[in-house]
């Protein structure tokens, strides 16, 4: 398996959806290729860091203001 082949399987690999016939090859490639091992690990960290850190604040004051505005508009436009 080449590095390009590995990359084409990366999304399915994260989803646990790699074709069973290919899975052993993918896993072997990760063990053999340090670059792809790093890409796998740092891509996994990329996803996790965005999922775990709420990067835009949604303070209660804003939420209440928006909520009131939405419901007022909906009631006025029934």
């Amino acid at each position, binding site marked *: 398996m080449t590095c390009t082949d590995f990359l084409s399987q990366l999304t399915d690999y994260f989803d646990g959806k790699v074709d069973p016939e290919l899975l052993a090859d993918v896993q072997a490639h990760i063990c053999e290729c340090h670059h792809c091992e*790093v890409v796998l690990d740092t891509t996994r960290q990329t996803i996790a*860091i965005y999922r775990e850190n709420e990067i835009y604040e949604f303070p209660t004051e804003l939420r209440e203001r928006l909520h009131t505005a939405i419901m007022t508009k909906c009631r006025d436009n029934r």
Partner: protein
Amino acid sequence: MPAIQFPVTEEIHPDVALVERAKKGDTAAYEQLVRQYERQIFRVAQHITQNREDAEDITQDAFLKAYQKLDQFQGNSKFSTWLVRIAVNESLMRLRKRKTSKTVSMDEDVQTEDGSIPRDFAEWRPNPEQLYGQNELGDILRKTIQGLPPGFRTVFTLRDVENLSTEETAEALGLSVPAVKSRLLRARLQLRERLSRYFRQKNGALKP
């Protein structure tokens, strides 16, 4: 011996009843749906537009539009996916109006291969949370996702930040599943490459 077969009972999503009540004019039921999804819709809009005022307007417009079009909601998809689709369309429309970016359709920015081929193979050690404080980390994450073409940013936001499935993301964006997967791979790799400038292991552990 054959395995015992249990009848498959399809679970009905609690939103279905709320939507039905809202369709009949029950504003309180709709208000409950608004409460449930206002944070998500605001976050999606802010991720796509990168602008807080736009995100506020879009959140209001999306919920109003959804309310006015409730009769058109057939229930083939989840209510939340349908709502996200409305918010994404409003957000892309807003970007087009602002014209700060040349590529605001879901189709235009697929040509670029820039950053889709990994070049940085440094490990991230110590891990980013150990390397940066919360505020500094937030700045890096905002700055980095802002640099991504809107089409990629949108797919990444729905699939990885909001945790929609690939199929739901495809539905919300009006794209095919393979198109979502291809954009998602590029978005993830581009973000990884850009973040690596900050997070890569350094000799002497100096920050950039």
